[in-house]
């Protein structure tokens, strides 16, 4: 029989831990070094835009000559940013809502059921994600213009739905697969019909997945340049497109006011991101991951 011989501190702490960490160091250093280098440069990229947007004049020096906030006012007025931001939000909300409404039920069927032609349908849903946006964007814009659906918000929304719906399907599928089908069976055995199962059981359980997928679609839509660019009319530009125009449209524009606009764009994205990360783990933004135990 084991008896407790000594109080815990009397035992020597094991040496294993420290030794093995030291051994792992060189590889870790390189990896962390690369990561830090990447982040430093990223920081530089973002910060140089931020600093410049507040710079009065910035020629061949480390920092601007003076600081001002006037570029924001200029950018705001010149590109009617209020309207652009409103449009951006409207488009995003519409795209997110519609793609969830269309995508989640389809994802459910594709995740749960097998039926003739399923592989083909899956492939068709995959294509819009695999194809370069320009490839289908140009004919899509042409068709949408032909039906009078482009050049305004409906066009932007429709075009953005093309990659978004498949995206919802793709991101939701693992979440749905994760739900034990027996839970649905259990609900039906309790007397719940299909609709009730969907509304009372599946939807609450899918909230994390729906959130993750909504956020992804939102971020992608706000950032989606090509399709919006091809289908937007003058009054249905989103922020990225306005930003692109500010960088490439004719006219003389102070660099700083473009920077200011970029900062506005980034801030909006960051706000979205911060909100998003309250609800989802960052890796979930790409795929559903189970955290493994620490050792």
């Amino acid at each position, binding site marked *: 029989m084991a008896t407790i011989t000594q109080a815990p501190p009397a035992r020597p702490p094991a040496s294993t831990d420290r030794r093995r960490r030291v051994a792992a160091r060189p590889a870790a250093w390189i990896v962390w070094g690369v990561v830090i280098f990447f982040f430093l440069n990223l920081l530089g990229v973002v910060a140089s835009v931020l600093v410049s947007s507040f710079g*009065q*004049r910035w*020629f*061949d020096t480390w920092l601007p000559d003076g600081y001002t906030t006037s570029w924001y006012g200029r950018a705001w007025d010149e*590109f*009617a940013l209020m*309207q652009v931001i*409103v*449009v951006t939000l*409207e488009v995003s909300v519409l795209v997110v809502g519609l793609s969830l409404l269309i995508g989640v039920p389809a994802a459910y069927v594709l995740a749960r059921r097998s039926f003739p032609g399923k592989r083909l349908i899956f492939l068709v849903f995959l294509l819009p994600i695999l194809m370069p946006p320009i490839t289908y964007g140009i004919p899509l814009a042409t068709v949408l*213009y*032909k*039906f*009078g659906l*482009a*050049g*305004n*918000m409906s066009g932007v929304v429709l075009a953005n739905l093309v990659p978004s719906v498949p995206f919802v399907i793709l991101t939701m599928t693992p979440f749905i697969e994760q739900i034990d089908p027996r839970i649905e069976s259990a609900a039906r055995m309790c007397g719940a019909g299909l609709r009730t199962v969907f509304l009372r059981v599946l939807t609450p359980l899918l909230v994390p997945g729906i959130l993750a997928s909504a956020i992804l679609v939102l971020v992608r839509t706000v950032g989606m340049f090509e399709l919006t660019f091809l289908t937007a*009319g*003058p*009054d*249905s*530009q989103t922020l990225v497109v306005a930003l692109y*125009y500010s*960088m*490439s*449209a*004719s*006219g*003389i*524009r*102070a*660099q*700083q006011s473009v920077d200011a606009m970029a900062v506005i764009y980034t801030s909006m994205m960051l706000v979205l991101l911060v909100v998003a990360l309250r609800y989802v783990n960052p890796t979930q933004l790409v795929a559903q991951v189970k955290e493994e135990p620490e050792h």
Partner: protein
Amino acid sequence: GAPEGPGKSSGDTTGEVPERPARAVTLNVLDVAGNLQLTQAMIDEFVSKNPNVISRVTYSKAPAPELAGKIKAQQGADRVDIGLVLTGVDGLAAGVEQGLWTDVLPKFQDRLGGMRNYLEPAAAMQQLAGNAGVAVTYYPSGPLLEYLPSRLSAPPTSADALLAWAKANPRRFQYARPANSGPGRTFLMGLPYILGDTNPKDPAAGWDKTWAFLKELGQYVDYYPSGTTETMKNLANGTAHLIVSTTGWDINPRVLGTVPKEARIATIDGFHWVTDAHYAVMPKGVSTDTQAAVLALLAFMLTPEQQAKAYDEGYFYPGPAVKDVQLSSAPQKSQDAIREFGRPEYDALIAGNPTEVPLDAKSLVAAFNRWDREIGGGKVKQG
């Protein structure tokens, strides 16, 4: 937030255009030339003075290349909601070729009395537009060279000298890709005059010297930025010591502070101004009420008091398209800016050098295409 367009509301688009609209219209203005910088104040003033003609105005901007596609699509869908387009020569011409614009002349000549007062080169620019566009602002443009005296004391003054300087100072001379840059295209179109090419209006057959010159010059050019802004930035930060410019690009960036105030300009011996203008056009398919409103607006914009606003902060220096518009009648802010950043020598330069209209759109696109392939794209193969 998008206004439901007037094009849709009042059905009649082809009938008689009344003197004034039956009901005040909402006007959507699309600017593809950066022209609102000069004219937005004029339009705003008109709207505030004539709320019974235009009740509300919205502005939007787009790059010129998309103009034709967009208008065409709206017309195809029978839902034109852009009442007024402000464009440069390129967008105007693209639309003319596709038959997008309502002919303003000669039908409405008498409503636009201001057109009789065009400056002479502005009148030439108006000629270039044919019947569709109404020139609203004008400037002689360039080509000019721009430099910082601290980095370059004696700028080259001839084509040969420019070449020699570029050779001696590799990577220090810059101009932007002509298709994306006013100064770039002005330089391109101005070179045949400077070099004495056989036919400055025929880039395909008449520009032998120009193409040869650009090719040789290209050997000392590091890269062609995709916009003028970039060249200005490089001038300011010292990467480039000599760049191509225009009157507007000379003054306005210095007002904005993106180029040091002390920057100077130089001209090449024997240069001709290649002039530039902005036009107002009406897409076909706009309701007659809106047409009436636009015509009233344009007439207003061509009055000397309004044209004075085109001095702006040197953005399109001088800017007014009609005669006898004095700087002193411009807004105070304009006067201050031009007094501080303008150049007294411009008056003499403008008076003392011939002016030429730019290439027509087709030739220009051909020239751009050739430049892209042989000069711009050529850089890759060499490097």
